[in-house]
C-alpha cells in the first residue's frame, strides 16, 4: 500500500510552553503558518549520502514493492530459524538491512557504472531503471522515450543515429557528413531494455558506447557524458534471441535479480490499480540529483577509505582463483587463462590435479580468476555501499554483501568440483549469490586460520620495500634478498600450492628482482 509522502517532520516546537512575558514579537512571524516556507540548505551543503538513503526509502516505501532484506547487516547475533526438510534457514537481521533489487541500482546510480537487472517478465526491472532516470532529473516521458528496446531487427542506425541524407549526397569527404545522433546518447542515465535481443553486430556498436563512452558512425565521433547504465534481460546466462558477446557481458559491472512478487502485498497492487497511481510520476523534487550533485556524489564515494586490513582480505580472496598448477611450466603462466587460451577445459585440468584437498581448494570451484576490471568494480561498489550506509570506510561486511553481485557474472563455477557434491552444497549450483558469499566466507576463515593479520611474511617484506630502495647499502640489500629466499625455502618444504600462495610467490619474485636490479646498480657505483 503506498504510504504517505516521505518523512513528515513534526513542526517545532514539539513541546510548546507559554512564552515569557518580556518576549517581543517578530513581525516576520506574520508569514509563518500552515505552509512550510523553510528553505532547503544550499545544495553544496546537502549531505548526499543522506539524500541517497532518502531516495532508497522513498522507492521501497512508495515505488517498488520489494519487501526483501537479502543484504543483511547485524548489530548483534541475529535470530536464526530452521525450517523444512532441507533445513532452510531464515535469518532475522538485527541491524538495518536492504533489498538488493532497490539498493544495487541505486549504488550503480551513484558510481555511474553498468548494472544488469535480470528476472522474469513483469517483475519491475524496467520500472526500476526508469526510476533511476527520474532520480537523475529527467521527466518520465523523456526516460521512456530514450530507453532503447532490444529487438532482432535493431540496426546500428536505430541505436546510434543516421547520417543526414543531404550530406550523404553532397559530401566530398567523410568529415562533411553530419550525423543525427540519437538523443539518448547524451543522457546521464542510459537504459537498454532486453539487451540480449540485440543482434550481434549492433551489440558491437553498443559495446563501444558502453566501454569507451563514445559512438562512431562513418568516422564521426560523438562523445557521451558519464552515465549510469541499466540493462535488462530475462535471464543472466547470456542467452536470449541472440547470444550476448563475451566482451559486452564482461562490461556489465553488477548483476541484480528481480525477486518474485510476494503475494501478501497484493493489496498494494490493488490500490495502485484503483487509484491509478504511478509512483515514477510523483517522485519528490527534493530527491532528484542535479548534475553537480551527481558529480559530487561520485567524488565522495571515491573518497571513502578502504582500510588496509580489509584490503588484505580482499586480496586473499581474489588470489584464490587464478592459479592452475598444471597449466604451464613457467611459473607466471600457471593460471587458468593459459589453459583457456590453449583451448583446454579448465575443469578437466583441475580434476587431474592430485595432492591438494579439492574441497578446501577454493580455486577448484571456479573456471576462471578475477580480472583487474572486476577487482576495481568490487572496490568501487564496496565504497558505494559504505557511503550509502553513512560510514567513512569500507567494512568487511560491506565487502561480503557486495562481492556476490559484482562477481555474479565474473566468476564461473566449476560444477564438477567436489565442493558442489558435498552435503548441503548442491544449492550453490543454482544460487550464484549464495555460492560467492560462501566462497568469501571460506576465504576469510582460511585467512583467520593462517593468522595473516599478524603473521604474513610477504606483508613484512612489502613494508620493507615500500620504505624505498634509495640509501640502502649493499649489505642491507643482500639481507633482504636472503629474507626472501628463506621464505621461499620454507614454503618449498612440502607445502601444497594453493591460489593465495601463487600470488605471494610471484610477489616474492617481484621483490627479489627489484632488489637484485638495485644491487647490480649499487655494485657499479
Amino acid at each position, binding site marked *: 500500500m*503506498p504510504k504517505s509522502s516521505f518523512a513528515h517532520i513534526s513542526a517545532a516546537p514539539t513541546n510548546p510552553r507559554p512564552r515569557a512575558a*518580556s518576549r*517581543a*514579537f517578530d513581525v516576520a512571524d506574520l*508569514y*509563518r*503558518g500552515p*505552509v512550510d516556507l523553510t528553505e532547503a540548505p544550499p545544495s553544496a551543503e546537502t549531505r548526499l549520502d543522506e539524500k541517497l538513503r532518502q531516495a532508497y526509502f522513498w522507492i521501497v516505501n512508495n515505488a517498488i514493492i520489494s519487501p526483501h532484506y537479502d543484504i543483511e547487516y547485524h548489530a548483534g547475533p541475529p535470530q536464526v530459524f530452521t525450517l523444512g526438510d532441507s533445513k532452510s534457514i531464515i535469518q532475522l537481521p538485527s541491524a538495518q538491512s536492504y533489498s538488493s533489487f532497490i539498493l544495487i541500482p541505486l549504488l550503480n546510480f551513484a558510481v555511474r557504472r553498468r548494472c544488469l537487472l535480470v528476472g522474469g517478465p513483469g517483475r519491475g526491472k524496467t520500472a526500476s531503471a526508469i526510476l533511476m532516470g527520474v532520480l537523475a532529473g529527467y521527466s518520465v516521458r523523456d526516460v521512456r522515450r530514450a530507453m532503447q528496446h532490444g529487438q532482432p531487427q535493431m540496426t546500428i542506425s536505430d541505436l546510434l543515429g543516421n547520417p543526414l541524407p543531404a550530406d550523404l549526397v553532397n559530401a566530398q569527404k567523410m568529415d562533411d557528413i553530419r550525423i543525427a545522433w540519437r538523443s539518448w546518447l547524451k543522457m546521464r542515465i542510459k537504459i537498454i531494455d532486453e539487451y540480449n535481443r540485440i543482434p550481434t553486430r549492433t551489440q558491437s556498436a553498443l559495446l563501444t558506447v558502453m566501454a569507451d563512452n563514445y559512438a562512431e558512425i562513418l568516422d564521426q565521433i560523438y562523445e557521451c557524458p558519464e552515465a549510469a547504465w541499466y540493462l535488462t534481460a530475462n535471464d543472466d546466462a547470456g542467452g536470449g534471441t541472440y547470444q550476448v558477446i563475451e566482451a559486452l557481458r564482461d562490461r556489465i559491472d553488477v548483476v541484480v535479480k528481480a525477486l518474485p512478487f510476494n503475494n501478501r502485498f497484493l493489496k498494494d497492487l490493488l490500490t495502485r490499480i484503483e487509484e491509478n*497511481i504511478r509512483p515514477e510520476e*510523483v517522485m519528490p523534487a527534493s530527491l532528484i540529483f542535479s548534475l553537480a550533485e551527481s558529480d559530487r556524489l561520485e567524488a565522495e564515494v571515491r573518497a571513502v577509505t578502504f582500510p588496509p586490513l580489509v584490503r588484505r582480505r580482499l586480496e586473499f580472496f581474489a588470489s584464490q582463483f587464478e592459479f592452475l598448477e598444471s597449466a604451464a611450466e613457467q611459473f607466471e603462466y600457471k593460471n587458468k587463462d593459459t589453459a583457456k587460451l590453449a583451448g583446454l577445459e579448465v575443469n578437466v585440468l583441475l580434476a587431474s590435479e592430485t595432492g591438494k584437498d579439492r574441497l578446501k581448494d577454493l580455486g577448484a570451484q571456479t573456471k576462471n580468476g578475477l580480472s583487474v576490471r572486476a577487482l576495481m568494480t568490487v572496490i568501487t561498489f564496496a565504497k558505494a555501499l559504505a557511503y550509502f550506509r553513512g560510514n567513512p570506510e569500507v567494512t568487511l561486511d560491506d565487502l561480503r554483501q557486495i562481492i556476490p553481485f559484482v562477481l555474479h557474472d565474473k566468476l564461473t563455477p566449476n560444477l564438477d568440483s567436489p565442493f558442489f557434491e558435498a552435503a548441503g552444497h548442491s544449492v550453490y549450483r543454482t544460487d550464484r549469490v549464495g555460492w560467492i558469499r560462501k566462497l568469501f566466507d571460506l576465504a576469510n576463515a582460511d585467512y583467520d586460520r593462517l593468522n595473516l593479520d599478524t603473521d604474513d611474511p610477504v606483508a613484512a617484506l612489502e613494508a620493507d620495500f615500500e620504505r624505498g630502495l634509495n640509501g640502502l647499502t649493499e649489505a642491507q640489500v643482500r639481507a633482504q634478498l636472503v629474507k626472501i629466499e628463506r621464505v621461499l625455502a620454507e614454503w618449498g618444504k612440502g607445502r601444497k600450492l594453493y591460489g593465495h600462495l601463487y600470488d605471494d610467490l610471484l610477489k616474492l619474485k617481484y621483490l627479489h628482482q627489484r632488489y637484485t636490479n638495485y644491487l647490480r646498480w649499487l655494485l657499479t657505483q
Partner: protein
Amino acid sequence: MTASPRITGALAARLADQRDRYNALFAQARHVRPTLSAAAFADVLETTLAPVVNAVPAAAVPAVTDTLYDLALELLSRDLLGPASRYPLITRGWKVLLPMLAQWVAEQPRRVVGALTNALHQLSITPGANGEAWIRALAHMAPACTRVETVLQVGQVLAWQAGLAHYRAGALQVAARLPVEVAGLALGIEPAQVPTALAVLPGNPWLTPAQAAQGGELANPQLCLVRQAGGFRGFGGPFVSPPVAQVHGGVFLLTDAQATWWLCADAFGATWHRAETPPAANSGLADTPFTFTGKKAQHLPSGAWLDLSPFSPIASVVSDGTTLVVTSSQSHLVFLFALTEVS
C-alpha cells in the same frame, strides 16, 4: 481527473500536458485523506488557480502551476482552502490577491503564495482582525511594489493596521525601510509626512498614522476610553473569570483564575497571547504619570482626569506610562484609557 471544460487558458494546457502526473498527485493525496473531494478540488482549480496561472507570464506557467497545485492539494486536504474551508478568508485572498500579484507569484511562487497564505491564516484566527481590509489594501498597493520583498514588507505594515497589534513595533521598523512613496501609501499619508509619523508613532499607540503625521501634539487632551478588550471565554474572549492587570517591562499582563495573558493593544486593535506570570510585575501606578484615588484617575502632567465609578468595583489599575488599564471584579472586559484629542 481531467481538466474541466470550464478551465481554460494556460492552466488548462498545463494540466493536459502533465495530466498523468497531476492525476497521480491527486490520487496520492486522496489516498492519504479519503475525504478529499474531487469536485471541491476542481472548483479550486477553476476559481482559484486558473485566474493566477492565466495571469503569469507564459514561461512561468509550469513552475507556478506545479507550486499552486501542490499547495492547493495540501491546503484543501486540511480544509484551509476551497468551498468548505474553515477560513474563507484564505480562499478569498487567493482569488483576489494572487492574480493582482501575478508578477511576483511568477518570480517566487512558493514564497509569495505561501507567505500570503500564512498571513491570511493569521488574520483569520486573530479575533478582531480585519482580513478583508488587509486584502483590499494589499491589492490596492500591488502596482506600487517593485520587488517581492516590497510586497511582503507592505503586507506586514498593513497587517498591523488590520488589527495585529502585536506586530506594531516590527511593522514600524519595516515601514522605515520602505521607500517613502510606498511607506506613505501603506500608512495612508503623504510621502513627505512619513518621517514625522514614524518618529511619533512609537511613542503613542493610540495615534493613527494620519494623526502622528501632524506631530502628535494634543491641543485639548482628554482621558478617554480608547478600547475595551477581552471578555468571557464562553463569548469568545480569553477569560474564565474577571482578570487582574499587571504591567511588566512595558507589557500588560492580565491574569484570571486559570491563566495569564499579555495584551497588545493600539489604535488598530488588541491581541491576546498566553504568557507565564513573571516574578516581579507592577500591580500599581508607580513611576507613571497617572494616579488613581477613590474613583478618579488622573493624568498628572495634563491634568486630564476621568471618573472610573462606572467600572466599579475596580479590581486593578495599572499603566505603562501611556495607557491606563482598568479591570473590574464584575467584568471579564479590560478597559484601556489614554489621552486623546477631543474636538
